[in-house]
């Protein structure tokens, strides 16, 4: 079927289809957009047919995924066309191009309203469709009464009525207040008497939404819904065209059953009986048939009926029928039914006590965990998670562990978390729990979050019986040739704390334990190193009487790390070294961690935060409360807070023992504060897994991780880890100089120097960046990336990743100025020197005045121009206050240096300056700019500035630009530098992208 009469559109679509590649397509689209833009711009009296054609093309282009940022007005204006063909296009294209938040839609509200209250039925339909599809709050407030009138009007035909019902539904969703509950319950009841099934379907959708919001007002509608269901179930008075594969409107059946689920119960016995007859018929009478569509439709009804039965909490008999049906479904071949069977079983667990029956299907559900379809696997995982209890936890968790090896990456984290929670919640014994978690870390370490291993530490600490076993297991895992970093952390922690419990076993002497841990040190990351150091300190403390050889070995390590670049490691090394010299006192300070107060597992809390089905989680929570299990959480009945630990006392005493090391000890007291102060008022800190200090006796590793991310360094005020390298020049001052000069140094630190050289011609610039390596070793991971504002097109030739020693690399950079703007491009320059990553954000001196060409005007040339640019937005005037004090001559020099050439004598008043220049950009081409500055000799801090050019944006940007030059912004940074002569302060603020951008943009 050809597009009647719109050849242009068909041709365009064919051409797009014939494009060989994306690039060609883009070219063709750009050409067309240019053409349409021109037509819309230049031909005011565009014929409706033409307009229609272009609007269609726009929609087609938009659908292909291109930005169409113009022509919305034309589409919207077609809505008010008098004739149907144009109006129709206007409505449809508007509702596709715009969404409810679009400002243009407001313009259309009046026209739309006129169409709704007008007499033309076809126009009413178009208007209702638009409002129903994209109407927002504003539409709701101004149109709801009219739409309601249509819906209840007796003269309104079905085709309008059903649209009005759904339109009102949309408006109600946007603002529930537009439907007055008192007035509407009766009307709604009347609407449900509707015989026309099209209108009734739409009204039922509206009803579902109303009743979900407030069922109290609509009790009178309940029997009507049951009547509708009866009518459909008996196939009474259902026209042939409303049956779908022989089923009386399955959609209406589903919607009606959905509406009934919003009523808490059905009290009237007759209504209830009638409904259950219908439901019984659906449950019993739905057979699997060959025709896919019939099957889907009948099962859509069946699943909704199941949901309704569950909701009404029917007699046990019906419930067991449901479970039996679901049991059948999860074993069928049809994947949709299998999926829904699993999903509904999970829902069923939530509402009724059918756990025992569902457990019979456990084997089948586990099979589904290996289904080729990820959608089904997800359902199976959720169901297994929900149905798990003490009796089947072992089986289910072991299945999950097995599946973990083959599961796709997207599911692993969820899987690991769920397995950890179940293991914790339903563990038949503690050692099993330990085994599961260690296996979990071993198999999927990358997907085991820190929460999980923190939790392990908490359990082991709180369960003395578990400690030797945990230490033994950790020791076994360390024998493996390659182990995951998380395993390293947990093993090192456990062995540090409890390896002395193994001391009599072969291979478990402090020395051997130390040896096997230390062997792994070169392979672990910085945060883990800190944990290892803590372990060494603990091992040292536990080896009594001290083994001098071991002691020397460990001291040597502490010594080595005293100069570590990582503040956390350094601090630990220094402190442990100092502490370990204290002999017997060490035993008190590094004593075992006290028990943690019992609290809700943070894993379960986290599971609640994840995207997981919250309903299903609440099910497991409520069941967990009912069930008595020997889960770990409850096993330890000891009061959370033990008698005060010796550690606390010891720490108070230390300073008096050894005055010299006073400051170290004080720091220890601070950092270990949470350990010593583990008394009731601080119970929260101690028990909270997310507060790593609580778990790790000595200063927490993860704590520093988060801290350094924030850039706040409570523990290490030495300086930001990144950018340990400071520039040796004042970057801000250099930038200001380069705004006027065209070549010079842009940045310099002890290792690197960046020079810049620029040539400007019209709206284009050619820059060369000179990246110089000042050192005798090569610089790695060199990266230069531009964060360019939208008005500049920057093309940087590739920057080599490595700069050889004492070499200089030249990187040409092409700049094109697209339109006037004061924004500044930022060069993100980073490199690695040794282990330091140095990252600097540098402003690129490609500023507005670089695109000026000086021009000197005579009075004859100047004044006609000045007068012709008479008023805003082309000519703008502003009184500027807070001007940097400078003499008139200095100001003239400043303007001249910016290539704003001052024409002396043009202004009769000697206190005034007149300047001119030509500005170049792609959008404005060359554009004359005129500036007049009137100064006040009595008050040099204020002046009046008038700027004029042929382009409003340019005028504005130029005015702001000059203002920035005149007022004290540049000098503001200078005093800061003078006050704090260390150049360190400057780069820190410059390397903070937030502050930088705020300053720049």
């Amino acid at each position: 079927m050809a597009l009647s009469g719109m050849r242009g559109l068909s041709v365009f679509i064919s051409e797009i289809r014939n494009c060989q590649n994306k690039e060609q397509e883009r070219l063709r689209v750009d050409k067309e957009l240019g053409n349409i833009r021109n037509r819309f711009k230049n031909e005011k009296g565009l014929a409706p047919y033409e307009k229609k054609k272009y609007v269609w093309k726009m929609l087609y282009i938009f659908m292909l995924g291109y930005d169409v940022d113009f022509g919305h007005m034309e589409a919207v204006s077609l809505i008010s066309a008098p004739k149907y063909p144009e109006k129709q296009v206007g409505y449809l294209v508007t509702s596709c191009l715009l969404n409810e938040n679009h400002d243009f839609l407001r313009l259309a509200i009046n026209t739309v309203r006129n169409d709704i209250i007008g007499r033309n039925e076809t126009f009413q339909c178009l208007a209702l469709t638009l409002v129903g599809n994209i109407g927002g709050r504003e539409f709701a407030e101004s149109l709801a009464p009219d739409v309601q009138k249509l819906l209840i009007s007796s003269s309104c035909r079905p085709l309008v009525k059903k649209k009005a019902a759904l339109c009102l539904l949309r408006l109600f969703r946007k603002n529930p207040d537009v439907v007055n509950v008192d007035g509407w319950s009766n009307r709604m009841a009347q609407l449900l008497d509707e015989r026309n099934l099209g209108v009734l379907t739409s009204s039922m959708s509206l009803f579902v939404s109303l009743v979900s919001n407030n069922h109290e007002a609509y009790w009178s509608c309940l029997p009507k819904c049951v009547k509708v269901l009866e009518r459909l179930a008996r196939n009474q008075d259902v026209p042939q065209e409303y049956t779908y594969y022989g089923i009386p409107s399955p959609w209406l059946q589903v919607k009606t059953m959905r509406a009934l689920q919003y009523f808490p119960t059905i009290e009237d016995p007759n209504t209830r009986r009638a409904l259950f007859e219908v439901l019984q018929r659906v449950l019993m009478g739905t057979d699997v048939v060959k025709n896919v569509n019939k099957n889907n439709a009948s099962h859509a009804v069946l699943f909704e009926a199941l949901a309704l039965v569950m909701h009404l909490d029917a007699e046990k008999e019906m419930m067991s029928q449901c479970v039996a049906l679901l049991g059948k479904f999860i074993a069928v071949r049809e994947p949709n039914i299998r999926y829904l069977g699993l999903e509904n079983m999970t829902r069923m667990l939530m509402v009724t006590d059918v756990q025992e029956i569902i457990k019979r299907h456990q084997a089948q559900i586990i099979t589904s965990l290996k289904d080729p379809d990820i959608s089904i696997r997800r359902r199976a995982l959720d169901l297994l998670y929900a149905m798990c209890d003490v009796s089947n936890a072992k089986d289910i968790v072991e299945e999950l562990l097995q599946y973990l090896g083959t599961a796709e990456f997207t599911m692993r984290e969820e899987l690991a978390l769920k397995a950890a929670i179940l293991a914790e919640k339903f563990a038949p014994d503690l050692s099993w729990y330990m085994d599961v978690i260690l296996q979990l870390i071993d198999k999927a370490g990358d997907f085991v979050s820190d929460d999980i291993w923190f939790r392990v530490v908490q359990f082991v600490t709180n369960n003395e019986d578990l400690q030797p076993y945990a230490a033994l297991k950790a020791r076994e895992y360390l024998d493996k040739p390659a182990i995951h970093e998380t395993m390293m952390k947990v093993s090192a922690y456990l062995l540090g704390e409890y390896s002395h419990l193994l001391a009599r076993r072969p291979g478990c002497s402090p020395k051997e334990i130390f040896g096997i841990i230390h062997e792994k040190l070169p392979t672990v990351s910085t945060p883990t190193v800190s944990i290892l150091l803590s372990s060494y300190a603990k091992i040292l403390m536990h080896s009594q009487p001290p083994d001098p050889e071991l002691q020397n070995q460990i001291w040597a390590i502490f010594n080595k790390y005293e100069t570590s670049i990582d503040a956390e490691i350094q601090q630990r090394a220094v402190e442990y070294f100092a502490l370990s010299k204290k002999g017997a006192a060490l035993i008190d300070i590094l004593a075992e961690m006290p028990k943690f107060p019992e609290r809700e597992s943070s894993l379960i809390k986290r599971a609640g935060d994840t995207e997981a089905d919250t309903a299903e989680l609440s099910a497991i929570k409520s069941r967990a409360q009912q069930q008595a299990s020997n889960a770990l959480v409850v096993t330890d009945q000891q009061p959370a807070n033990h008698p005060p630990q010796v550690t606390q006392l010891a720490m108070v005493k230390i300073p008096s023992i050894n005055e010299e090391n006073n400051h170290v000890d004080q720091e220890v007291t601070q950092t270990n504060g949470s350990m010593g102060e583990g008394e009731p008022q601080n119970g929260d800190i101690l028990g909270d897994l997310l507060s790593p200090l609580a778990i790790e006796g000595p200063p927490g590793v993860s704590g520093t991780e988060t801290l350094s991310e924030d850039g706040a360094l409570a523990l290490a005020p030495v300086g930001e880890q990144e950018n340990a390298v400071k520039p040796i020049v004042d970057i801000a001052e250099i930038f200001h100089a380069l705004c006027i000069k065209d070549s010079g140094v842009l940045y310099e630190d002890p290792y690197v120097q960046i020079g810049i050289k620029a040539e400007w011609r019209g709206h284009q610039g050619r820059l060369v960046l000179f990246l110089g390596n000042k050192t005798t070793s090569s610089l790695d991971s060199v990266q230069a990336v531009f964060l360019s504002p939208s008005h500049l097109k920057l093309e940087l030739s590739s920057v080599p990743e490595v700069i050889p020693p004492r070499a200089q690399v030249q990187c040409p950079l092409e700049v094109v100025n697209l339109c006037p703007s004061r924004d500044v491009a930022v060069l993100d320059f980073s490199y690695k020197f040794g282990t330091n990553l140095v990252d600097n954000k540098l402003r690129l001196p490609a500023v507005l005045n670089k695109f000026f060409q000086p021009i000197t005007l005579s009075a004859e040339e100047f004044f006609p121009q000045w007068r012709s640019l008479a008023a805003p937005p082309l000519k703008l005037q502003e009184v500027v206050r807070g001007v940097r004090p400078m003499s008139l001559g200095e100001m003239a020099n400043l303007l001249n240096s910016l290539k704003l050439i001052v024409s002396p004598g043009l202004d009769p008043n000697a206190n005034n300056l007149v300047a001119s220049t030509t500005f170049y950009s792609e959008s404005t081409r060359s554009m004359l700019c005129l500036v007049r500055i009137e100064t006040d000799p009595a008050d040099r801090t204020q002046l009046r500035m008038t700027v004029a050019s042929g382009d409003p944006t340019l005028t504005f940007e130029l005015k702001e630009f000059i203002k920035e030059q005149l007022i004290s912004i540049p000098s503001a940074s200078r005093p800061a530098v003078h006050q704090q002569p260390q150049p360190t302060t400057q780069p820190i603020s410059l390397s903070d992208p937030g502050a930088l951008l705020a300053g720049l943009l």
Partner: protein
Amino acid sequence: MIHFVLLISRQGKVRLTKWYSPYSQKERSKVIRELSGMILSRGPKLCNFVEWRGFKVVYKRYASLYFCMCINQEDNELEVLEIIHHYVEILDRYFGSVCELDLIFNFHKAYYILDEVLIAGELQESSKKTVARLVAAQDSLVDAAKEEAASISNIIAQATK
């Protein structure tokens, strides 16, 4: 509620998009990209539902075209699957054995017909006959206007001869 309808070809080309919930243009492209990646790569014998960002997407493949509708987690998946089929049957009846090319060159018709099937992300009309009748009535309104315009231009042409 249906949040959006997508028609995507096997090559990942978009043939129709209709958004009932507000998405910006950027979000729209992202949604299309994510979902085509997920759905086009699925094998033939899997179920018709994919879980995505807390929503469900019900999809069905007809020849080279995938029809996708995004719904809430708690919505009835099979019901929506059959809304898709209902729409396809109406298209099929209108074009007479519809194929992808019909929908490419007459994409506007596909939109008009969809507007008669869904409003506000809800099913509006479950009778194929009624939808066909309404769409035909619209077509004849457009044709009538065209004839009228043609006859007026004839009259003008004749008068200015």
